[in-house]
Each structure stands twice: as C-alpha cells, then as structure tokens.
C-alpha cells in the first residue's frame, strides 16, 4: 500500500470544502462563516433583499458595527463622519430583516470584526470564513482559511453558502530563530513585506510557520496574519496548536474542547510541498517602521531611508538617506485590527508607565480593539496608565486607522500608528502615516519624534 502524498494545511482545508470543480476550472467552495460590518454590510444585505434572495443559513452569518462608529465614550448612532449614521441604522435594519446576529454599537460584545470573531469563538481551526473586509486574513491566526472579499462576493456567500474561486497557489513563510527583545509580530510582517514587496504574496495562500511563529501567542499571531493582505496574499494562516485550542475552547460559539483526533490533523504534513517558500531569520529583525506610502516602504527603525519612488518621498517629506529616528511626530495612535488586543495594550502600558506623552504631540489615542478588551484593560488599570501619561482612552472601533471624514489633522501632519496601512491620505488628506508596533508608538509618543522602543525599554528596566 502506498502512503498518501503529504498535504499542506491549505490543501486539507480546501479539499474538505470543495463541493465541485466546474469545467471552467474554478471550484465551488463551501463557506462556513460570513462576517459583515456596517461599512459594506448594509449594501450587501440590501442588494440581496432587493433581489429577493434570502440568507442561506443566517445562524452562520454575523454582523458588527466597527468601521465608522464614534469611539468617544458615551456614543450612540451618531458618527463623526457626516452621513455616517445611515450606515449604522441601515445595517441594523437589514441584519434584523435577514435574521442574522448583530453586535450593535453598544453591545457588550461589540468590537472590530477581526478582534471579536476570535473572542467569541466564531472563527475556528479548519473553517472557511469570509468578510467584505480585506483584513479578514487576520483570523487565519486560529488555523482557519479566512479571506477578504467584495460586497458582491459576500452576497454570493450569504445566498448560497459557497464561493466560486480559483484555487490559489501555496506559499510557506518560515521565520526561524527567536525574536530579539522589543521586536514583535508587527515587525515580522513589515520585514516580510519590505523584503518581498506589497505584491509578493499575490495569488498565494500563505502559511506562516517556524520556530518564531510557534513562539508567538495567539494575539500576536493575529497581528502577523493581519498583514497578509498588505502582502497581496489571498489569506495568511498558522496551523493550530495547543495554544490555539486552549484559546478557543469554551468560547461562546466554539466547541467546549478540541479533544477529537480531527483537530490534530490540521497541520501541513511533513514533506508537504509548497509552490513557493520564503525563509526569514527572525533573530536578525529589528523594530520596523514605514517610511513611505506603501507597507513595502518599511525599514529597520535605526536605519536610513532607502531610495524609493520619488512620489513617495515627496508625499512623506523624507528623502533617501534621511535618519528615521528623531523625525518629529504630531499624532500617536494605538488601535486597529492589527494591534489593539489586550496583549498589545499591556505591552504598551508597561512601557509608558511613569512617562508622559511629549507636549509636541497634538493628539495621542488608545482605542481598544473590542468592548471586551476595553473592559479587561480597565479591570487591570491600563486605562489609568494611558490617561495618566496623556493618552486619550476611547471606546472600541476602527477609529484613526482610516479617514472617513471624522477626526482631522492639518495637511502634512505626521502620525505614528499601530495600524496596517500608510497609503497617501489613508488617515486624512495630506497626512503622513508611519506604521509600527505599539511599542514604537509609545516610545515615539514620549519622545515627540520617532524613537526606538528598545532604548525606552532599557531606560524603564534601569
């Protein structure tokens, strides 16, 4: 008897969900979970209702208000974005009509989609999960195949319980070795994209593996997988292990335990062949910061700005050869589906304790990734540490990750941000965004200029 060929985790999940492959080459793939938010959810649900198409299985579709909700304490349906309330009220009405579970503005379980889905055990190892949001790949950290789609695809998934897709190629990104102190999952993601480009993962489902990935806690794994879309990968995921099962067991929508042998099969077999492989020595990485207008424009924080497209240099106001450290900052932001979980806030609070935000900073904000994160942080007194230091403490939502017409800063303002995108205008017209880890945001907020978190950590340790 011949042994079956070793399979990748991707192939196992794909094969387990492939209903049929048509004559035209694309496959009909079962979708286990759909998540919507108010920015794109109402449009999809309204369009389905107009076409007279019901949701195939409402119990497996969830919605939440996260994108344009007001993050100021005491919020209602009002938004800082002009006309934004309609997105909230229409999503609420459409979700109710469709019979799907909605985590509303002031629901105790409200939060950013990719923060609350793992918190509630909605995403599980081995499932397929889609949402009309590019950062859905975050949820691959739990061992799921999770990816972002458009509104039309979301309608398709909700109406049929399936998607028709071409099979992507497979890629394994292996991080060997151990991260140095002060270097985080965010730095791993930025280093990968800086080295291989914002299009480097195009056409691929990317499995993150290796010693440094296994060493990451679940929330840090979410940070790494979150940036897979900035690499243009279809999805990013990590094989579930004991940490994954311990994290999920007993959560509201998750199984009570993961004892069945099935769960142990959710990993790439030894000898499985990937279409592409990238290996990065994690021990060689430094804290990273973006210098330009694409996540691929990222660099070690203590280096000199490399030569990039002139347009990016002009927008960001930094020429090639400039030193990144010491670049003055106007706004500091900790938040987003990338870096606003409890572990992020704990690390940030530990660094900022006993320090003050520089008077040069116009605004410093901490926006928890979910209402549950907010409560847990407050129970530990993290909110008091942040506010004592001069940060504003907010209610959960996407906040300054993107500009929808709400909080505005003068053109040319420079932000240090724990988010995922540094595109031109992403945080507002003319805003110059530098993305980095929460540690780097804290160090920079204290210094009033881009600063190395390793130096601050040394100072704190003394």
């Amino acid at each position, binding site marked *: 008897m011949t042994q079956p060929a070793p399979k990748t985790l991707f192939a196992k999940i794909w094969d387990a969900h492939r209903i049929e492959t*048509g004559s035209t080459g694309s496959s009909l793939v079962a979708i286990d979970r759909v998540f919507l938010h108010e920015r*794109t959810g109402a*449009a999809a649900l309204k369009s389905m209702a107009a076409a007279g198409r019901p949701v195939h299985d409402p119990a*497996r579709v969830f919605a939440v208000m996260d994108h344009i909700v007001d993050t100021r304490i005491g919020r209602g349906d009002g938004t800082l974005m002009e006309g934004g309330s309609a997105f909230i009220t229409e999503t609420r009405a459409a979700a109710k009509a469709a*019979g799907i579970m909605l985590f509303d503005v002031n629901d105790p379980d409200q939060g950013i989609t990719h923060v609350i889905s793992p918190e509630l055990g909605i995403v599980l190892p081995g499932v397929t999960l889609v949402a009309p949001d590019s950062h859905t790949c975050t949820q691959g950290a739990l061992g799921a195949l999770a990816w972002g789609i458009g509104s039309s695809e979301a309608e398709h998934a909700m109406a049929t319980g399936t998607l*028709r897709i071409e099979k992507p190629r497979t890629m394994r990104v292996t991080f060997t070795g151990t991260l140095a102190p002060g270097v985080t999952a965010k730095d791993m993601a930025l280093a990968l994209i800086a080295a291989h480009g914002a299009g480097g993962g195009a056409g691929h489902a990317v499995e993150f593996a290796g010693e440094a990935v296994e060493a990451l806690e679940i929330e840090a794994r979410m940070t790494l997988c979150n940036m897979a879309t900035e690499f243009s990968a279809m999805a990013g995921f990590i094989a579930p292990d004991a940490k994954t099962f311990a994290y999920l067991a007993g959560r509201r929508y998750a199984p009570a335990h993961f004892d069945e042998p099935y769960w142990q099969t959710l990993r790439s077999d030894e000898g499985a062949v990937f279409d592409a492989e990238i290996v990065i020595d994690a021990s060689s990485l430094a804290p990273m910061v973006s210098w330009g207008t694409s996540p691929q424009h990222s660099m070690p924080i203590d280096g000199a700005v490399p030569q990039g497209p002139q347009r990016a240099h002009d927008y960001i106001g930094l020429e090639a050869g400039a030193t990144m450290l010491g670049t003055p900052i106007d706004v500091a932001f900790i938040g987003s589906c990338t870096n606003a979980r409890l572990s992020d806030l704990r690390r940030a609070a530990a660094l900022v304790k006993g320090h003050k935000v520089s008077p040069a900073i116009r605004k410093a904000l901490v926006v928890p990734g979910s209402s549950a994160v907010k409560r847990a942080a407050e129970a530990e007194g993290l909110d008091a540490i942040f506010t004592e230091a001069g940060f504003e403490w907010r209610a959960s939502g996407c906040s300054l990750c993107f500009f929808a017409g709400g909080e505005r800063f003068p053109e040319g303002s420079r932000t240090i941000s724990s988010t995922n*995108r540094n595109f031109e205008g992403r945080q507002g017209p003319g805003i110059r965004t530098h993305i980095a880890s929460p540690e780097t945001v804290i160090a920079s907020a204290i210094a009033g200029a881009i600063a190395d978190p390793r130096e601050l950590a040394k100072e704190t340790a003394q």
Partner: protein
Amino acid sequence: MTPFTTLCSIAIPILRDNVDTDAIIPSREMKSTGRTGLAEGLFAPWRYSDVAARVPDPTFELNRSEAQGGQIILGGANFGCGSSREHAVWALVEYGIRCVIAESFAPIFRANCIRNGVLPITLQRSVVDALAWHQLEIDLAAQTVRAGETNCTFTIEDEPRTMLLEGLDVIDLTLKARDAIAAWTDADRTARPWVYLEKTA
C-alpha cells in the same frame, strides 16, 4: 451585469505601482449605503487640486482632454491593493471605465472587477507602458489587445472570461448547483457538527 465582448477606447495611463483602493475611492467619498453616487469621488485625492471645491488638477491623467470619454485605465504592479471596498470598482464603472490593464492586480480588486463587468487584463510592464494614450481595440473572445499595427494576446481564466462575455449573474449560476450544495452540507453536518450553529438572532 453588462456583457463585455469588445471595447474600443483610448488607454489612460495611471502608471504607478500599488495604486490602492483608498486612492481610487477614499473612504470619505463613500457617502451612501448603496452602489451609486461614487463617480465624482473617483481618484478624488489625485483628480482634484482642491477636493472639497472639486477643482480639477490639470496634471492628473484622467483630467487631460484626450482622456475624456476614455474607458480603459493602465496601471502598474499590484493595482487595486488595500481595502476590499467594491466601491472602487463601482466608482470606475459609474465613471465609464470598462477595462483596467496592469502589470498585476490585488486579488480582491480583481475579483470585484469581474463581478461588475470590468475586464482586468494582466500584461508585462513594458507592454502596458507602450499602450499609453493609444486607441486600443480589445476583443475578449479572442483575448487580444490591438493598438494600431501592434497586436498582443492576454490570458484570463475560463470562468471569469465566460462571466464577462455573457454578463452572467453568478449567484443564479451557483444556485443551479443547489442540490449538490445541499448534499455536501448534509454530509458535512455529520462530519463537522461544530460548524453548524443554532440561530441566536
């Protein structure tokens, strides 16, 4: 969906790498919960020198006189990266764009194009560059792009090609496989019961 068969138009070059969907349609330009009213916000940060007053920036390619009425945009690598917002494609369609030719596409944007009758063509960068401001004739059935005497071919997977050529409603198409989906789901319910939830809403 409007079928895509052939298209004759000037090719408007926006030949930058990593053109993201925030540039194609900034979040603040997504003012309604529907799919319309987006054309005015298309490329707003680049198209207007004063976005609020809608003052056109004459240096932006889309504002040049020869670009008026153009239905083809040329792009660099990783076109349409960033946010999954389908509004980027809805804005392009509403403005009149039916085809984007680029060195490569971000996957969600590319899928959104196909769902909305916009043909995404991938060609080598040197070929894309050479098409700038030329009058092109695109034939999807033949998979050709002709610019004067120059003729080149492109590849596209069979299913998107058929979808575009016939303007098919993909949901209707999939619902024809309803029985196969139901049979698969019944079997899966036994294999992976934890996937199937009780309704809580």
